[in-house]
């Protein structure tokens, strides 16, 4: 445990002590100042509405992306012709920076929560779609054959064989999508909003308030860390029965 | 046995295993992979370790190779206690474990990195071995271009390259189809005679053990130990349909059968 925190403590100490000497102190602030700001924010309640707004937008965006993403993935995995129709366009869009849509979003739907949700949804849609689609499409042929032998129809095969068999992959991509939704929302707030953690960063930066910028980054890092742990435990929990099956 | 051994000039090592035990901890439980196993292998001999899976055959082989250390007892090869792996003991695993980015030739050459025979000598030795295992035409091929049988031939060539005095085989033919398998069994015998090494082979195939070995050690699990030793005095080349062969195979099978029933009853 000491080893894990050693470098961090060392860096923080060096930063705290070094900041007093150089002329960059003003830009860098100090760890104590940042901690102080975090404390002040949580006491006065200043940060909560921003954090809440970001989380709300992330969840809304994630909800849309999760629904549409898995639906597309399932439809394309179940129907080769549908897949051939959509695959090239979706794969091309996957490697395109989603931020390019931001200026258009602002023009089309203005500034506020709506473009933030849209950007959040767009960011996480592709991760969810791509991960679930891979899992759903590569479902072992023996499951599908079993379904056929049992006389399952199209919908039964899709929902009772394909979907459960690809469950772990879908869950992994959903949890990963949650992180992308969170970061997408912050991205949206930085460009097209007047609330939220992303806005808080930009606002603090324009007023040259380094301590606030770093405090906001710490909050974002903490939330991401929590989400990553959720992802890790979800993946572990689901991988366990899968491994047992592989061994049997 | 006597016939085969006298006809070759022996360079293989002897192996003496005395009181070897090995315990693994799995989820807090103790698994006795080996308990107080003692056995001796004579220079130039071909012996098999035979038994159902989980009876500690691989563990035994890994201890002889120096890949694992016993908790008690010791393993002496050619008068010296085994403490670490050595090029003087060649190992072939069930999967070929060739390095996928090297060609067959380079894979074998890698095992010669310590051979004091110069670059030309090494190249010559590689060619000789590839010829011996019938892979000359595939010297430049990458492992993923080879079939299962060919990969195992390459792995055997790699193990034999540095002229080990002991060859350790862990179910080397276990993953092959039965036709390839019986062909490679014949080739193993040929290699054994050509290289004059001591061979210890792990297998769970009774026929394979009887076909190849001078002696068969039958092992049983929980705890892993030697149940019986069979001398196979049928002269080489052996025929699988001879009365002697069939009778010996059957008596080994009977022991294994009884063992399995006993194990089921105690479980």
């Amino acid at each position: 445990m000491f080893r894990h925190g050693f470098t961090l403590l060392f860096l923080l100490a060096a930063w705290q002590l070094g900041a007093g000497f150089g002329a960059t102190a003003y830009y860098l602030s100090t760890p104590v100042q940042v901690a102080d700001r975090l404390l002040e924010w949580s006491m006065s309640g200043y940060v909560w509405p921003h954090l809440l707004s970001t989380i709300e937008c992330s969840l809304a965006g994630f909800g849309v992306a999760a629904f549409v993403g898995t639906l597309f993935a399932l439809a394309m995995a179940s129907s080769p012709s549908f897949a051939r129709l959509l695959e090239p366009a979706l794969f091309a869009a996957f490697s395109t920076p989603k931020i390019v849509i931001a200026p258009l979003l602002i023009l089309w739907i203005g500034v506020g929560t709506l473009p933030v949700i849209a950007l959040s949804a767009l960011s996480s849609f592709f991760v969810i779609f791509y991960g679930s689609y891979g899992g759903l499409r590569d479902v072992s042929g023996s499951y599908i054959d079993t379904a056929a032998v049992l006389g399952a129809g199209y919908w039964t095969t899709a929902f009772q064989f394909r979907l459960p068999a690809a469950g772990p992959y879908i869950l992994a991509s959903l949890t990963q999508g949650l992180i992308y939704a969170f970061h997408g929302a912050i991205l949206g707030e930085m460009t097209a909003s007047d609330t939220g953690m992303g806005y808080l960063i930009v606002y603090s930066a324009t007023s040259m308030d380094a301590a606030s910028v770093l405090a906001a980054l710490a909050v974002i890092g903490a939330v991401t860390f929590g989400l990553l742990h959720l992802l890790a435990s979800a993946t572990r929990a689901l991988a366990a029965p899968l491994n047992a099956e592989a061994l049997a | 046995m006597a016939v085969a051994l006298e006809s070759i000039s022996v360079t293989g090592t002897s192996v003496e295993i005395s009181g070897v035990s090995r315990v693994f901890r799995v989820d807090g439980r103790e698994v006795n992979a080996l308990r107080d196993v003692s056995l001796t292998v004579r220079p130039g001999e071909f012996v098999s370790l035979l038994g159902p899976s989980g009876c500690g055959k691989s563990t035994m082989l890994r201890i002889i190779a120096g890949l694992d250390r016993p908790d008690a007892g010791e393993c002496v090869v050619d008068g010296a206690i085994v403490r670490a792996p050595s090029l003087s003991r060649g190992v072939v695993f069930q999967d070929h474990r060739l390095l996928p980015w090297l060609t067959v030739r380079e894979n074998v050459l890698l095992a010669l990195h310590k051979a004091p025979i110069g670059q030309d000598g090494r190249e010559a030795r590689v060619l000789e071995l590839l010829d011996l295992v019938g892979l000359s035409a595939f010297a430049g091929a990458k492992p993923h271009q080879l079939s299962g049988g060919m990969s195992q031939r390459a792995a055997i060539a790699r193990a034999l390259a540095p002229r080990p005095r002991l060859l350790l085989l862990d179910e080397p033919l276990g993953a092959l189809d039965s036709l390839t398998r019986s062909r490679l069994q014949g080739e193993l015998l040929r290699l054994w005679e050509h290289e004059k090494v001591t061979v210890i082979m792990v297998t769970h195939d009774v026929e394979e053990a009887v076909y190849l070995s001078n002696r068969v050690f039958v092992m049983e699990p929980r705890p892993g130990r030697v149940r019986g030793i069979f001398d196979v005095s049928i002269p080489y080349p052996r025929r699988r349909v001879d009365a002697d062969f069939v009778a010996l195979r059957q008596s080994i099978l009977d022991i294994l059968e009884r063992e399995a029933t006993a194990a089921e009853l105690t479980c």
Partner: protein
Amino acid sequence: MSIEVLSDQRIASSGTLRFARVAGRSSALFSRRWMKVWKGTAMAALLGLSLPAAILAIWTIAARMELVAPQILPMPSLVWATTWDLTVSGDLPRELAVSLARLAGGLLIGGALGLAFGLLFGLSRASEAYLGPTLRAIFLVPSLGWLPFFMMIFGIGETLKFVLIAKTCFLPLMVNVSGAIQTLPAKYHDVTRCLELSRQERLRYVIIPSVIPAIAIGLRQAIAKGWKTLILVEMISSAAGIGYLMMWGRKSFQLDVVFATMIVIALVGLLFDRAVLALQQRTADWSLHTGG
């Protein structure tokens, strides 16, 4: 963090499969037996293009009938003309060159550092224990979050872009390379021991070659993420580059310029992705993690 990358790898490998299929199809172009398959590929291409074509048609109709104001949705023909003009005038190639140079510089610095730390963490558990958690914690905050802070420290000059792209490209290489070494199957360790390979020989013959597929995967993620981050930073604080050109178009309400740059940004992203995917496909053959 490693889990995120793991499932990115899944994505990468499913892409690889597709690629292998298509590559298999287009070989032996002239054989009669393959004509049918070739026709199938052409059909697939047609089918795949039908969706973009449909979108283009709806867009044209909407714009022509002025269902939407032209300030909000320019005509496709105008976007095409603008793309052409910007290309011929040299504006677009110049801005694109600026962007590509920034990406290359950042990738070189960040990628090399990521590779070095990945090797270090993979080879030494102690270094991972001391440095790993701190580095990962710092990189947990997405690049876009760091942008305003970096702007305060580095200003809005070229340094900012290089630092940010380098920061973005660092993690994919570090995570993939260290992960590949740490998950190297133990059975190959047995082989190196049996062959009495020294530490250097083990590095040269086993470890370095075994991480090459991971480097390809890391490179692909680094380029994709680096490109996204670069566009973002150019949109927010730059006076040159393709992202700047786009923002300039928006600020001067020339939506045709916005659309033109959007298309170029998407195409370049796609081109990079396919190119690195091809590289990744070449290294996939010798993966110790999947092969027998």
